[in-house]
């Protein structure tokens, strides 16, 4: 509630400016982007920054017939890989020279590129009802909704 009040007393020009400002995606950064392995975990980790993922996590992943298994913080995870839909690429965008202010144009660059994501469920086997699997249906449907219609 507090936030809404604060916004309401801001001058109109401020609100407008946040709509004026753009965030540029620097594409020439793609060539220098890394291709790391990308994992989606079923927990929120209160951390943004380095971690010994390959040493602790990747090294202990077991590949079984229909699923992968691993554990994190003593909890059993089951997962599988999902690919980006045809015609789509995974990117990690990173803000450069973050100003922390809403008042300026911003710039992001491509810091990583990926084509597959390994997602992990807490204890349940991966299946077609998993969120990310279902969400990957979106680009196909977006094409239907937004593609050109015949005259």
């Amino acid at each position, binding site marked *: 509630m507090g936030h809404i009040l604060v916004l309401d007393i801001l001058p109109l020009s401020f609100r407008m400016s946040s709509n004026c400002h753009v965030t540029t995606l620097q594409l020439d950064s793609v060539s220098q982007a890394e291709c790391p392995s990308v994992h989606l975990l079923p927990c929120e980790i209160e951390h943004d920054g380095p971690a010994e993922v390959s040493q602790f996590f990747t090294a202990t992943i077991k590949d079984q017939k229909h699923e992968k298994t691993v554990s994190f913080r003593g909890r059993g995870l089951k997962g599988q890989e999902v690919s980006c839909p045809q015609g789509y690429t995974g990117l990690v965008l990173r803000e450069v020279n973050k100003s922390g202010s809403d008042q300026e144009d911003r710039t992001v660059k*491509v810091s990583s590129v990926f084509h597959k994501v390994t997602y992990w469920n807490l204890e349940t086997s991966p299946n077609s009802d998993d969120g*990310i699997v279902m969400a990957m249906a979106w680009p196909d449907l977006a094409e239907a909704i937004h593609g050109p219609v015949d005259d």
Partner: protein
Amino acid sequence: MTTKKKRTPHSQNDRWVVVAADSAVETPKKDDSDPTFIRLRNPSTGNAASLYLLGSGDVQLYEVKAFKEDFHSWFIGQTVQRDGRLLYVTPMDPLYLLLPYLIKAGEEGKFQPVDQVVMDEDFPACTRLLSCTRSQTSLHHVAEEKEVGSQKFQRYSQERTMEWLKKKVHRTVKTLRKSNISVGEGVKSTTYVRVKQESETQEEDYLRYAHGLISEYISEDLSKALLKHLQLPELSSPKEVEPPSKKRKLTDKPLEAGEDYTKFNSSDFSRKPPKKMSAAQKTLAKVDKTGMKSMSAFFSPKGKAEKK
């Protein structure tokens, strides 16, 4: 054993995991600008701003959506990212965003150049939509056009718009049919208990579903008009959710000859597996059920296997 710490609020992000259409991130042609994320008026809500992406040289518009499940984070290489969202950047028809401006100008009833119509002091970037290749070539879907000399003039046409949206709906139905998205469990009119055949109901389910999807990109008024145009009765109360299958079971009418029987074996009819079980359901599931007759066995008449 589990942590009892409260979740701390998440400060602003400086990193995003994105799945983007290749066309959005192809290296720009010489001299073309980089793609830009911009905020524009969301056509379904009218006032709220949503985030979009204009590709290199403003040639193509993209929509940005976030897949967000609670309690998720990323490992990206040798790093952790707390924000577990996955952003989708998918091509978007710019006409959906231009439409509100054309409708507004159309109230005056006269032909106007489109660049005088698409202006918004709250969202100045909206003029850039006119640079999209598809904007200029598809305006005739929603407006009448007149050419005077080298200048083009447009006037919004509800009739054309309805036809255009109808095509959009049918296009979407086609894709839905090919997918295994279940469209049948949605809202159903309580006043609409007409006895129907399965195939007809299916068709309506698809139409309604596609209409709902298209309605994400148009105003409520247009959405209602489109429903009429599709000859779908308005639902009395969208709040009252009722599984359509219940009503359907009562109508055990034999299929008429000429009906496409093969459809009933298609995947359209196979139900999705049940969602993840709750803890209570799991406990139930663990109960040894050997020797227990299922409840439905008592009620279903013999020899009439239900089609599920």
